[in-house]
């Protein structure tokens, strides 16, 4: 990643977001999934698109947005419907990022004894039975990636730093 030069003056970096720029950003993310080059995407990709634009919606939030923009149960979403809705979301900072320390607190709720780790079965139980349930596939992927395979434990502080270190696109 190339490191941007630090901003010099007090107001140097806070440029007012120009709507045109926002439109371009949204369009670029959208077209990455527009496989048929006809300005539509499969509704199942909308979550990925919205997340990649820097937002942190819950599944419920996503369902609301989809309900607003989906083309009458066709399973597709058109750019011209998506663009104004998403622009509003970005300009109003509707789903702001959750700070890392809140994520740590969340894990500590589950790790009552503050051992610093969770047993995979416990984590699986919480994430597949509570909240906005993980699918088996999501759970498997998370465990494969983040379990310390020698000790068979999930050290969640490592997990958090990985999730947070993901470079901005």
């Amino acid at each position, binding site marked *: *990643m*190339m*490191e*941007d*030069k630090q*901003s010099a003056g007090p107001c*140097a*970096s806070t*440029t007012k977001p120009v709507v045109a*720029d926002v439109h*371009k*950003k949204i369009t*670029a*993310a959208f*077209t*990455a999934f527009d*496989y*048929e*080059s006809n300005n539509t995407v499969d509704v199942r990709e909308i*979550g*990925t*698109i*919205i*997340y*990649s634009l820097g937002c*942190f*919606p*819950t*599944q419920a939030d996503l369902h609301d947005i989809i309900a607003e923009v989906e083309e009458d149960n066709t399973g597709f979403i058109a750019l011209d419907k998506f663009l104004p809705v998403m622009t509003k979301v970005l300009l109003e900072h509707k789903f702001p990022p*959750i700070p890392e320390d*809140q*994520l740590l*607190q*969340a*894990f500590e*709720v*589950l790790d*009552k*004894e503050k051992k610093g780790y969770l047993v995979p*079965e*416990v984590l699986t*139980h*919480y*994430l597949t039975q*509570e*909240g*906005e*349930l*993980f699918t088996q596939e*999501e759970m498997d*992927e*998370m465990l*494969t*990636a983040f379990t310390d395979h020698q000790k068979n434990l999930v050290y969640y502080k490592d997990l958090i730093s*990985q*999730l947070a270190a*993901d*470079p*901005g*696109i």
Partner: protein
Amino acid sequence: MPPARWKILETDDTVKSPSPALTMKAAVLIQRWYRRYMARLEMRRRYTWNIFQSIEYAGEQDQLQLSSFFSFMLDNFTQLTGNGSDLISQLLDPVVDPWLDREICYNLIPVPESYTGPRLSFPLSVSDTNALLSAFKEQQTLHARYVLQLLYETKKLLKQMPNIIHLSTSYTNEITICGDLHGRLDDLLLIFYKNGLPSAETPYVFNGDFVDRGKKSMEVVSLLFAYLLLYPDYMHLNRGNHEDHIMNLRYGFTKEVMQKYKTHGREILQLFQDVFSLLPVATVIDGKILIVHGGISDQTDLDFLSSIERHKVKSALRFPRRSLEQLDIGHSCKRMRSTAGSRPSSHSKNQLSMPYTINVLQVPYLDSLSSVPPPPPPPQHDREWRQVVDILWSDPKPQEGCSPNTFRGGGCYFGPDVTRRLLLRHGLQLLIRSHECKQEGYEFCHGGQVITIFSASNYYEEGSNRGAYIKVGRELVPRFYQYQVSRTTRKLTLTQRVRVAEGSALKALKEKLFTHRSELLSSLQQYDQNNTGCVSVSDWAQAFESVLRLDLPWRTLRPHLARLAPDGSVDYQSCFEDMEPGIPLAQVTPNMAETLFRYRTDIEIIFNIIDKDHSGLISIEEFRHTWRLFSAHLGVDVDDRAVDDLARSIDFNKDGSIDFTEFLEAFRVVHKLDNKEQLNGKTAGGKCS
């Protein structure tokens, strides 16, 4: 209900359980974070994919350029000095050496006692194919004598086969259909391991592109031909666009053969040429499923295709003369923007005072003038060429209609209506093709009437895609089996795989930037009239898109390619600071350097052709001559004296010959970061080719 053993934990009074509401909140938070992370990972995977595909397609556009150059050279060969022309004409329009049609071509070759590889005995038996499998797994090379014999026998067999093979599921179990392998032995071995070796119970169709790009094309193709000889009723091979000696020159198979077979490489390649052109072009299962490598066009006629002499189409890239007109190199299509003069098109004027005419499309023929529109109906051999090329090179597209595939340089983009019509016309229900890499190894399109099947996993880079094969039984419903070869013993997580693939893609992309530096800079400077060194992100994206003509999400990629200035604009010089030339040569002007960088692969091929005895050396005169021709063809302004200076300076031994490998090393783009990482003892991530 939590499992029983937790009940024990919960009754432990020293720890207070959180409220259910808090637990739920915590779970939602974690899920949200994780989903966001995975989504962004998926986004990175997508654009990495875009980069690889765009560069691959752009590379094939280069192939068109090279082919037209070959045609041009051949058509003007009387003006070339002695050696070069014979070589070129022999390689491009070969006359089959009659020697190779007789058994003497192989049985006079002695096999030394010291050779520990497989000794094949014909007709082949299962022990021979098993021996080949073990030998190749242990990195052994098959002796040239057996290679030649294998090819000789394969040629004999293929001569008896029709252009279109008809198979039936009623006598067999399911038929397995595999796509592109591109010299990936590991993938072939994995398929054989998962699915079984070819036999009466396990018949196979391999849908072309067995060679090029991968490093084990010889081994892959030897195995396929051996099984073909062993079980001609249960093993079926379709020709792909890479079963073509001119493609092999560029994409690695020729090089691999010459490296593995220093004495007999030439003969082996000549025999391959014949064998490739004799491969059937299509397979039909139960009269319902059509299998071809590329696709179809609105001109495809299976009855006509059955009747032609397929072996006459030796290479798709040796265009029948009249067809050259129909190819408009500057034509814009889905992925290209119209040339803004950045790449010399066929219409560029000769900017140098060269004695040659360079405009390929107007080279006068002996028998007719090329520039007479509209052309009369093409003669027989053109039609045959076109039918075969369409089958081997076409790609499906979502929109209706049929348009020339100028990107690939041959074949068409065919729409769902073309598919529908062809299937209807011949009573078919499905078209299975390969030719394009797909992330999951397979993909449906045209409302389920077309399947793309691709069997080389990790094609662009480790983790880039899965491979797949199809099994189809009497009910004619395809079933898909996916796999992915893992090169490392340590299992990579998705994150790691994405990171590696991404690193490789970005490297390849940066090389493109470097080799187009002067055009990019001049385009950027148009947006930066005050010479501040910065442009807005939009202008930056616009400049890159118009010069490189790669359909990529430039704004998304910007953080990897360029730095921002404090005011949020792009410091565009930062795009080029990561790379440098291999060995700086003082005599090379910037313009020349860029051309050399950009066309390095093509120049290498030309040198290889001229270097008759594969010594790695060519004479200064040949170098000078070739270089001038090539740059004249490209329309690049090159000073005669600069070429002479260059030639003299790289003749390090002052003996009148040039070691072109050394020369080309100087024009390999070196990534500075690689050097730094190597110094620090880390290994650079990902290969770049």
